[in-house]
């Protein structure tokens, strides 16, 4: 989208979204809206088996269907047969073996989508089922069949801090589990591939990271990178689901083969198979503290299910393990994390990226510890909270701000919502509301809190950067600033932030954002809460360079030729962890705390979340309205994980691949969210601003389940909590 904005505010103001008007009109073009005259429709055949050998495949009947233009299999992949963000271990199209139910096996291009789908049914694949591994602990057993030649361990790491044998006065222990959550962005995976005259291809695509897609596409298509040109299309939400490649390579293969534009757009069901999910986790923790409530020693074992292929599992388990002690000072710890392969659907990036699962466990532990010590849960947390200068279990000191105490104190100061009698209440405001199932005779209220943290940007030595180009000219309407980056606005509002930065740096009202593509250098991914810092930083640097040149030429009024500059922003470098998990892995951190107030109908096991309150460390709010939107939206996804969202897997098969069966919070499920923005500018980051997308998602699940424990007295060691876990108290 090329957007022209005038008279908008700069950094720190709640300016309107630059893409708001086309979006409310229905005129914003999402990838699923793309179309070209004469285009074909692509469709994908997927494996029905979680683990099977492919004995034979016959596509002749499908290819013979009138209107079917191409049917392609692994034999048609022009170049490298596999792709992947970290390790390229996932076949573009399965060859001898399928490793999860839903794996792509063949692709079809046809004159219309119905024909393409009908043709899929005519592809004959002869499978021989193999022993499947669908449980993460089973994957570690000696008898488990190896899913990949190197075995079933994706990554295992141990962080040893201080003396892990250190004795403590009081110990508490627990096992915790979180389920497989789906990002469920409303916009489906979609794109349009157009063959080019030079033998290359142009792909219009909804993605989080154009250049990571490019890096995987070019070798698979056996084309030089300059012949694979990616152009950003409208993105209908992402939340991690678009970090990995879905239909990108397939659409390009079909376009290159047929020499016609090919559109692929997944339906909701296919979307559940077509992208990675949040890793399910099983976490054991043991916390030791002194009698007066200081943490002495934390032991943790974390196991996450990476599913059939690597995706971002190494980074997810790295995060989960390095955050396992929570936002607390602890002198001694042993934290062991393992990610395994199974024949479940691959897991990868989702908002919170490993930090969510860890927080669910360590915050439950802190409540247990508070009970064991007979201390107020907030007091216990305040006593142990990280601060600037604290040393983490990895040995990394916190160089920036760490307002953990401020987050907790802001929550503490908020009054609780008044208790309402169940009797004279609108039944919609009872647990189970719209179902009109109960009358509120057995309501119990609970309050829970959680505090947590997450890294901003990529970790463990990843060389991360973003490039921006800025050009200033003067025409008869006055000065004009044009900006180009490859950074993706997935809905979080980056394009608006960029225009605010340009206005603040250059004092120019008229800003045009050019459509992101791969003609400019990488901006990195719109993930890890990093784009405001990275692309915001690059745009700021480019603006400053342009400003200096304009000043040198005597100011805007005297500008005769356009001035332009490109700049690349790098964050400070980080390092890998050594064999004891020691190092300097993270760029910096954002902290957050949540308080949940719930009501449980003890007879029905139904829950109403009455209120959520979130206090979040944002560094500086560049667009306060949009910060609130991130906190509220992130809270909704956290509430979903706590109460309802889970991909139901039975023997590796997804049983709820639809919005009828996979429930995400509706407007009736969401309570008011009270957001407390904590602004303590972070040194070294542009404008002192931290990324804001993830902390609420990290802490809300733990807070909601803590509130349910408070209401029911049950242990509730697994999220999502189901009615069965709550009934018959």
């Amino acid at each position, binding site marked *: 989208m090329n957007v022209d904005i005038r008279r908008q505010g700069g950094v720190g103001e*709640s300016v*309107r*979204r630059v*893409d*708001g*008007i086309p*979006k*409310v*009109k*229905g*005129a*914003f*073009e*999402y990838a*699923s*809206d793309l*179309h070209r005259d004469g285009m074909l429709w692509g469709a994908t055949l997927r494996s029905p088996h979680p683990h099977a050998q492919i004995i034979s495949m016959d596509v002749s009947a499908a290819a013979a269907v009138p209107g079917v233009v191409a049917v392609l299999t692994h034999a048609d992949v022009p170049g490298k047969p596999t792709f992947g963000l970290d390790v390229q271990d996932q076949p573009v199209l399965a060859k001898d073996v399928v490793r999860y139910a839903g794996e792509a096996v063949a692709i079809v291009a046809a004159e219309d989508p*119905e024909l393409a789908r009908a043709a899929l049914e005519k592809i004959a694949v002869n499978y021989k089922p193999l022993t499947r591994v669908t449980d993460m602990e089973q994957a570690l057993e000696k008898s488990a069949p190896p899913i990949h030649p190197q075995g079933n361990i994706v990554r295992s790491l141990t962080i040893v801090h201080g003396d892990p044998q250190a004795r403590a006065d009081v110990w508490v222990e627990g096992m915790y589990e979180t389920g497989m959550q789906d*990002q*469920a*962005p*409303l*916009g*489906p995976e979609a794109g349009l591939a157009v063959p080019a005259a030079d033998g290359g291809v142009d792909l219009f695509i909804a993605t989080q990271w154009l250049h990571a897609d490019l890096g995987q596409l070019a070798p698979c298509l056996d084309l030089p990178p300059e012949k694979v040109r990616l152009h950003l299309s409208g*993105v*209908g*939400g*992402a*939340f991690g689901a678009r970090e990995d490649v879905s239909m990108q390579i397939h659409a390009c293969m079909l376009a290159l083969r047929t020499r016609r534009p090919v559109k692929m757009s997944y*339906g*909701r069901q296919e979307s559940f198979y077509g992208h990675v999910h949040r890793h399910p986790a099983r976490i054991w923790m043991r916390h030791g503290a002194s009698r007066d409530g200081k943490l002495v020693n934390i032991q943790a074992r974390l196991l996450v299910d990476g599913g059939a292929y690597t995706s971002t599992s190494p980074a997810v388990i790295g995060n989960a393990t390095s955050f396992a002690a929570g936002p607390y000072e602890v002198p001694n710890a042993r934290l062991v994390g393992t990610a395994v392969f199974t024949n479940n659907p691959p897991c990868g990036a989702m908002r919170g990226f490993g930090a969510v699962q860890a927080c669910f466990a360590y915050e439950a532990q802190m409540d247990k510890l508070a009970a064991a010590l007979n201390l107020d849960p907030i007091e216990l947390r305040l006593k142990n909270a990280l601060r600037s200068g604290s040393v983490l279990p990895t040995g990394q000191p916190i160089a920036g701000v760490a307002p953990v105490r401020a987050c907790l104190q802001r929550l503490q100061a908020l009054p609780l919502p008044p208790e309402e009698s169940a009797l004279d209440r*609108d039944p*919609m*405001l009872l647990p189970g509301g*719209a179902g009109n199932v109960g009358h509120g005779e057995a309501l119990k209220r609970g309050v829970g809190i959680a505090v947590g943290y997450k890294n901003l940007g990529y970790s463990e030595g990843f060389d991360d950067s973003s490039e921006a180009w800025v050009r200033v000219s003067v025409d008869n309407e006055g000065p004009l600033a044009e900006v180009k980056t490859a950074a993706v606005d*997935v*809905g*979080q*509002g980056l394009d608006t932030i960029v225009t605010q930065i340009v206005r603040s740096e250059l004092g120019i009202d008229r800003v045009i954002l050019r459509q992101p593509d791969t003609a400019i250098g990488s901006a990195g991914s719109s993930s890890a809460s990093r784009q405001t810092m990275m692309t915001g930083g690059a745009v700021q640097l480019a603006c400053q360079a342009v400003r200096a040149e304009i000043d040198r030429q005597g100011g805007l009024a005297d500008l005769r030729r356009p001035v332009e500059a490109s700049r690349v922003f790098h964050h400070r470098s980080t390092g890998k962890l050594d064999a004891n998990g020691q190092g300097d892995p993270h760029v910096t951190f954002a902290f957050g705390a949540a308080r949940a107030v719930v009501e449980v109908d003890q007879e029905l096991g139904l829950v109403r979340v009455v209120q959520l309150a979130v206090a979040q460390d944002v560094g500086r709010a560049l667009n306060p*309205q*949009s910060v*609130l*939107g991130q906190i*509220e*939206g*992130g*809270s*909704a*996804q956290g509430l979903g994980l706590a109460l309802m969202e889970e991909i139901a897997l039975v023997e590796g098969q997804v049983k709820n691949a*639809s*919005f*009828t069966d996979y429930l*995400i*919070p*509706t*407007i*009736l499920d*969401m309570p*008011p*969210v009270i957001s407390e923005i904590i602004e303590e500018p972070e040194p070294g980051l542009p404008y002192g601003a931290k990324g804001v997308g993830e902390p609420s998602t990290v802490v809300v699940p733990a807070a909601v389940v803590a509130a349910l424990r408070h209401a029911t007295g049950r242990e509730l060691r697994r999220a999502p909590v189901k009615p069965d876990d709550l009934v018959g108290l």
Partner: protein
Amino acid sequence: MVVRVKVNNEWREAEVWPGASLLTFLRDRLGLYGSKNACEQGECGSCSVWLEGALVCSCLVLAAQAHEREVRTVEGLMADERLHPIQEAFVEAGAVQCGFCTPGFVVAVAELLQKDPTPSPATVREALSGNLCRCTGYQKILDAVSLASSRMRGGT
């Protein structure tokens, strides 16, 4: 089969296969991409349109059922190139993030405020419970509804 529909006050016709939904007809045959497809099961409300004045999920209605009838879509909401006050309110309240759910919400709110210009918060929640949004957590959508309601009644 050929389906003929009066869409946003204009008669349009196109060829579709008999099983095609009204949503497919509007999007892929008439090029009206404002109504979105996020579930195709009547669960998300992204595809909502008016059929003979009644709000429906166009993914659940056959194109054939709309033959010779009147349909209004989000594209028909603006008057004289000016945003509808509900559209204004969505932008202003920050109710739009990725925006994929927005057209569906905008028409659902238009339907609600037409029937009940001053809905209670509970009424708003109930009326919008068939629309999913994955980005906003709904709070700013509720803000947009009250803003629109007050503006449409002449407030500020």
